[in-house]
């Protein structure tokens, strides 16, 4: 298989889906000129009618996606940085999540929301926050985040084909990560709602995603010989693949959840509660979480030790195995 970068994998997904389905288009700010390279060069093939730049007007910009989806198109709305989606929060969370259900489940809303997210650039809260947990809190919206180029391409394709609103941010910290991807024209998809065991192990399960998955894999490798760490990538937060996690816990009986989101009210909290409810008897130790402390994400030199990192993940693994 060939190797491409994570961000190029997303672009390939756009290209293939836009060629396949004329109703797919991208709306955002400065996507034609490609402020992030996942839209680089697309305007040359698809033209400014399908690679659409709007003024700095997130409500209107998201409105293009929302309304066009109701009209049967399949828009991808790119918020550039994840935090910018909060500028139009009532539309893209509340109204989006309730649209299908509250109106009698008669009219789907097939749209994709994406944006770069995550720590690593020292830019602080508004440019560094994660959004998956907040969107996952709103029923009616699927939420997923890929961790490898293979998953990125396959999951973006799934998201575009899904008949529901799908929030699929990508982590800026793995933008240039390289990985194997099938040849062009091999029309594979990675279904939403299916977790992936990224490394097998028997002593402890670590659930981690995106940049934090890379950190978890690094730690697992470091601990090999001493502790056998199973690393699972949830890939989707909503719907979440509880079966894969519980099956793993039958073997390891210990769980560390790493989530680059705040401790309070995030995905890691949801998973911990569900494991307690559905897998209490499997556990030999309390579930341990590695998350952001409940403060606005600081920038500068603090980001590297405030955010989850390999040291904190290793400490949590050791604690849960002690």
């Amino acid at each position, binding site marked *: 298989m060939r190797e491409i970068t994570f961000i190029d994998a997303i672009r390939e997904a756009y290209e293939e889906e836009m060629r396949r389905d004329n109703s797919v288009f991208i709306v955002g700010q*400065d996507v*034609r*000129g490609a*402020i992030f390279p996942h839209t680089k060069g697309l305007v040359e093939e698809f033209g400014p009618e399908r690679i659409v*730049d*709007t*003024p*700095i007007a997130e409500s209107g910009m998201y409105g293009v996606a929302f309304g066009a989806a109701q009209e049967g198109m399949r828009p991808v709305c790119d918020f550039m940085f994840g935090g910018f989606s909060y500028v139009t929060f009532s539309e893209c969370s509340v109204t989006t999540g309730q649209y299908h259900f509250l109106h009698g489940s008669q009219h789907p809303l097939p749209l994709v929301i994406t944006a770069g997210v995550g720590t690593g650039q020292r830019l602080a809260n508004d440019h560094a926050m994660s959004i998956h947990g907040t969107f996952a809190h709103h029923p009616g919206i699927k939420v997923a985040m890929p961790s490898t180029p293979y998953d990125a391409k396959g999951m973006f394709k799934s998201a575009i084909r899904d008949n529901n609103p799908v929030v699929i941010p990508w982590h800026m910290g793995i933008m240039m990560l390289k990985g194997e991807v099938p040849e062009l024209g091999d029309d594979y998809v990675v279904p939403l709602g299916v977790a992936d065991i990224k490394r097998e192990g028997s002593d402890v399960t670590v659930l981690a995603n995106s940049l934090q998955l890379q950190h978890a894999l690094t730690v697992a490798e470091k601990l090999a010989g001493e502790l056998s760490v199973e690393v699972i990538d949830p890939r989707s937060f909503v719907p979440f693949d509880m079966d894969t996690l519980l099956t793993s816990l039958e073997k390891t009986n210990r769980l560390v959840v790493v989530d680059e989101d705040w401790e309070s009210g995030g995905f890691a909290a949801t998973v911990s509660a569900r494991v307690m409810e559905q897998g209490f008897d499997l556990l030999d130790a309390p579930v341990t979480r590695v998350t952001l402390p409940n403060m606005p994400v600081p920038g*500068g*030199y603090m980001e590297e030790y405030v955010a989850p990192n390999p040291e904190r993940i290793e400490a949590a693994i050791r604690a849960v195995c002690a």
Partner: protein
Amino acid sequence: MALTSDQMVLLYRNMVRADQFNKMMYRRMMQGKLIGFYHPAEGAIAPGVGASTFLNQDDNLSPHHRGHGITHMLCKGIDIKYYLAEHTGKETGCCKGRSAFHFSFPEHKVYMMSGFIGYNFAPVVGWGFAAKRRAQGQVVMNCSGDGSYGQGRAHEAMLMSQNWQLPVIFFCENNGMSIFSTAQEMHPQENIASLADGFGMPSIIVDGQDVFAVAEASLQAIERARTGGGPTFIEAKTLRFNEHDIGTPDLSGWEERSAEEHEAMRKREPIRIATERVLGDSLLTQNEIDQIIEDALAEIEAVEQFADESPIARPPVEELMAGVFAD
């Protein structure tokens, strides 16, 4: 409103300072001596200087994000060393080194900055509301770019400021660009100031490369706001000489900005325009100008030294947690 010679000399001095500070920030970003990113202000320093130089200490100022507000803040009497220390992640930074590029000088009524373009439009209404209730002649100078007027909240702020006759100045620094997008494409009319017409708000369009013209317009709007005359919209037509932020390609739409565009822009270099004026009007001699430049460079050297010699901010998480809520 004709400017006095003293006012013109002060404006000129601030232009030189703003220009040199911007050059310093550009250089430090290239040297890897700044945290995060930098949006250079070259070509666009006159609007901020003209808008901010004659504000009082108790007037509110929301600086434009371009140049990271330095142009505006230094004219309001803020010591930039605390901001440079912040931008280099130091303990002595104005936000204790935890904010990267954000600034906060509440004692100067420069409260905040957010990475969300157009964020300013919400709080300025509240500042104007408070100023009106306090009735002490305080004004709100609300500076932001042409692009920021795409946000719905810009229109909400104009609506309420005009309804309530709040002392808010909507100061639009129109450099014709918003990252790669041109104002020509993103705004339906040539002048952003046309927005004011719909609200019945008085507006002034001014050459943003001419600091003296900008200052005259600003003084007129400040006077109106101070005396209960309500808001004014000022559009300063300016330019962006560099790419949007350092390292991003310099595109218009999805093509490189042309050499001709750059050449034409450079003819409207604001420092040169100001220099020709002060020399032509015999307000300053070349020797005095050289001295002003030297003073600015000395000021900047001290600012950099302060930032560079300050310790890196790496407080423990517990200490940070203690700062999430006020007592």
